[in-house]
């Protein structure tokens, strides 16, 4: 595949890995967090850890959109799907994520709810056009990457006067989550400061950064004295970013660098940003699975688009649903525990019977480790 295989070249990888081995200094720690689930997936899928010296430790972050959705909001979507005349459209990843008491959209579908998996939000709009007698709701989740398409479709629905379409908006923002993670990992702070959880650097998001640009990450360097390197989702991108982080750490630098220059600019995609600003506004607070309530960390649909806002069109009382008590998703999402440190990992919690959200999506740290990497545990 043109423009893809070049970024998966095993020989180039060996060269980069050799340089990483050369440049790693004894006596230094290199605990690097990849924020994004896309990076987590690439790391596990390509076995990148096999190419790294032991001193370089990768810590999975919270950037899996499915994983951070709290179970209460997922349960609200399930309840919505079970109403008469509603067709709930969702991205495939979400269908197996457990809501309250382990219920899922797939189970609701089996009970008779009309749940449709779509590849794109515009497919949901097509369904609404084709089924004027039904209420079509799109279950919108994701970081800044999936938000502009949602904005486009809401604007399109308004232009067409499509009154049987609405969006259940769960879009969240990357910088506030990153801030929460960095605060958590500051020396002497956080839930478990002795858990060897201090970070030395971050691999910054790929697709998210194409939208927001590299500028919004400056606080990482300024406020937390951490290096951050924005990287693409291909495995060579990840290795290159690791090398750049090692170089910053070795020189004591803390700056935002952009490895993903083929797609990310300092200012990002202005048009996408304008669309987002036109349709969405900040929610004062929003609950994240694992990170708790974070201020100004999510988006709501502006009142002028109320007609296309499922939370205004339907009565949707907030649902508080506690996660399974043995599940360590919260600590895994914050990078405090590794998937295999969770008591139920691979035992009570497996991809076939996930107790927590991290075991569902291929981008979830637990699912990625289970599917691709658990043989390492057996070897250890």
């Amino acid at each position, binding site marked *: *595949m043109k423009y893809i295989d070049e970024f998966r070249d095993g020989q180039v990888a060996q060269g980069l890995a050799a340089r990483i081995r050369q440049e790693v200094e004894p006596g230094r720690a290199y605990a690097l967090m990849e924020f994004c689930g896309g990076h987590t997936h690439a790391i*596990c899928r*390509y076995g990148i850890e096999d190419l790294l010296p032991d001193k370089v430790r990768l810590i999975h972050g919270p950037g899996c959109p499915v994983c951070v959705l709290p179970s209460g909001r997922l349960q609200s979507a399930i309840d919505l799907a079970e109403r008469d005349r509603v067709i709930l459209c969702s991205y495939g990843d979400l269908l197996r994520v457990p809501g309250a008491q382990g219920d899922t959209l797939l189970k609701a579908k089996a009970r008779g709810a009309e749940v449709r998996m779509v590849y794109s939000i515009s497919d949901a709009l097509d369904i609404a056009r084709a089924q004027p007698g039904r209420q079509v709701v799109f279950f919108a989740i994701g970081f800044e990457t999936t938000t502009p398409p949602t904005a486009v479709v809401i604007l399109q629905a308004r232009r067409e006067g499509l009154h049987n379409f609405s969006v259940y908006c769960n879009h969240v923002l990357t910088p506030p989550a990153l801030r929460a993670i960095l605060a958590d990992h500051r020396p002497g702070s956080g839930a478990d400061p002795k858990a060897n959880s201090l970070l030395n650097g971050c691999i910054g998001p790929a697709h998210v950064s194409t939208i927001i640009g590299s500028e919004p990450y400056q606080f990482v360097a300024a406020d937390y004295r951490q290096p951050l390197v924005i990287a693409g989702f291909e495995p060579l991108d990840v290795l290159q970013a690791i090398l750049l982080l090692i170089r910053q750490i070795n020189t004591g630098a803390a700056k935002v660098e952009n490895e993903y220059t083929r797609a990310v600019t300092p200012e990002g995609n202005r048009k996408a940003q304008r669309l987002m600003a036109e349709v969405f506004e900040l929610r004062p607070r929003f609950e994240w699975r694992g990170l708790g309530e974070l201020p100004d960390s999510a988006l709501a649909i502006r009142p002028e688009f109320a007609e296309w806002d499922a939370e205004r069109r339907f009565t949707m009382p907030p649902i508080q649903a506690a996660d399974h008590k043995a599940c360590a998703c919260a600590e895994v999402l914050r990078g405090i525990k590794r998937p295999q440190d969770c008591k139920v990992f691979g035992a009570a919690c497996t991809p076939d019977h996930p107790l927590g959200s991290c075991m569902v999506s291929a981008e979830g740290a637990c699912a990625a480790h289970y*599917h691709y990497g658990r043989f390492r545990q057996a070897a250890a």
Partner: protein
Amino acid sequence: MNPIPQRFAHHLDLKHGCVELTHGGGGRAMAQLIEELFLAAFDNDWLRTQDDGARLPGCDGRLVMATDSHVVSPLFFPGGDIGCLSVHGTINDVAMTGAKPLYLAATFILEEGFPLADLKRIVDSMAQASRQAGVPIVTGDTKVVERGKGDGVFITTTGIGVIPPGVEISASRAKPGDAILISGALGDHGMAVLSQRENLSFESPIMSDTAALHGLVAALIQVAPGIHCLRDPTRGGLGSALNEIAQQSGVGMRLREAAIPVHEPVRALCEFLGLDPLYVANEGKLLAIGPAKLAETALAALRNHPLGREAAIIGEVVADDHGFVEMETTFGGRRLVDWLSGEQLPRIC
């Protein structure tokens, strides 16, 4: 004087007619459907008797029986349709035991209102596949369900075959040191079908690989009768088939990603949709596991057959109490090729 009435006053309207409930009712309409459609297409001595069962000659050796139901959507896809698929699927299940397939039975569950023209297309495709494979459909059954209670047509086929002497093939026979071979590129069938689904507006050149593999199996067994396991990696793909064998045989596997053939369009579409070709269905590929010393001979036999031109040795069986299927990635790392959990769902980003 009026002429003696014909058995059926009018021919079935195979252009514009539809399946009706009476076509499954056991009366004249059903007899007509069988005679003018099924019998006309599958025509052979066993069917012509129109008895309830087919009387087959006895044969020496161990018999194999396999059955497979087909519920594919859409019914017609690039490179095939539910008709030929239902013939190939069962022939392949019989062949994967090392047996020579001899006879097929076919059951149709038809939905009221299903166009007879489509049914004829499907039945003709089955007839052609069965003739090409040299495996006749010797008996069958038809049921009709009310509109809305089926999905057009479901077809179940059952096959009988006989295992040649000296052949001992089972998914429980893989041994450490064995070589793992695949007969060609992965994922063509699954991606051909997926690219036709109504909610995916893709144009792709991908064709299903649906094919009867008993000829390929015979060619393989002829030069390498000591093969331990054969499996056609259908639903769940290569990944699932290898995990099944690893579990049944109590062994592990080590694959080399670079050696696994996948056609470029399949790779690209999988990449686009966030799917892994290792878990995508195939309908014309086989996986063979056998002693390393037979590997090159087996590979040559596969490659000499039209259905095995792209065959490759993709890894080996190892001793592993955990039964892990591991793969050396093209990138130089290692990963697990795990069981599939539920259906493959596309990722969000």
